[in-house]
């Protein structure tokens, strides 16, 4: 079940159009369900969570890069992220 839906949303379109979500919904669902209080998840909520996670990854990566020292060396390193975690309230 989930596999098929994941394919569809992950963008294995015949047209090859722009994908909506890159992350596998089945895996996202597994993580969400590991939370004991959660009974069931609407498909839209699943898609949005996956999309939000993507945005989060992008944001974390760019934020850490910009604020870290890796940008001179053109590499994002662990210390950049550690800095972000320590200094940014959001993260």
């Amino acid at each position, binding site marked *: 079940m989930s596999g098929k839906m994941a394919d569809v949303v992950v963008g294995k379109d015949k047209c090859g159009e722009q994908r909506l979500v890159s992350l596998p919904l089945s895996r996202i669902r*597994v993580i969400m369900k590991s939370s004991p209080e959660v*009974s069931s998840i609407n498909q839209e*909520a699943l898609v949005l969570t996956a999309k939000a996670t993507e*945005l*989060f990854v992008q944001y974390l990566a760019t934020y850490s890069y910009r604020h870290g020292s890796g940008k001179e060396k*053109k590499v*994002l*390193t662990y210390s950049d*992220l550690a800095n972000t975690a320590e200094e940014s309230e959001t993260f």
Partner: protein
Amino acid sequence: MAERPEDLNLPNAVITRIIKEALPDGVNISKEARSAISRAASVFVLYATSCANNFAMKGKRKTLNATDVLSAMEEMEFQRFVTPLKEALEAYRREQKGKKEASEQKKKDKDKKTDSEEQDKSRDEDNDEDEERLEEEEQNEEEEVDN
């Protein structure tokens, strides 16, 4: 918790791609950094889910829905995500609608083929009936205007 952290990870390849697309060209990511981001992403999902679930429970619902997720984002101080998420939701709904119509159309075509002539005949009759109804309505309107 019974599950080990490894099982709750997202695929490395996808995470790496998202990171690379977000960063300027030519920038690389160390293995540790990627791993850290991947784990952070899993934590993000858990936290967002828990937060969204609170909203669902407030609404006395057992199923998490899109609104719960959006509310969770605001709660987690990721308001910046709300607009792009709403757009994504719209796009997703349109896609779903399109698919539903496409599969319904396919079903109609399939029925037409299997029922062949009989179906065509009754369809023509339906069309005629619709036209008659329309004409009647128009006539009624004219009468009212006269009055």
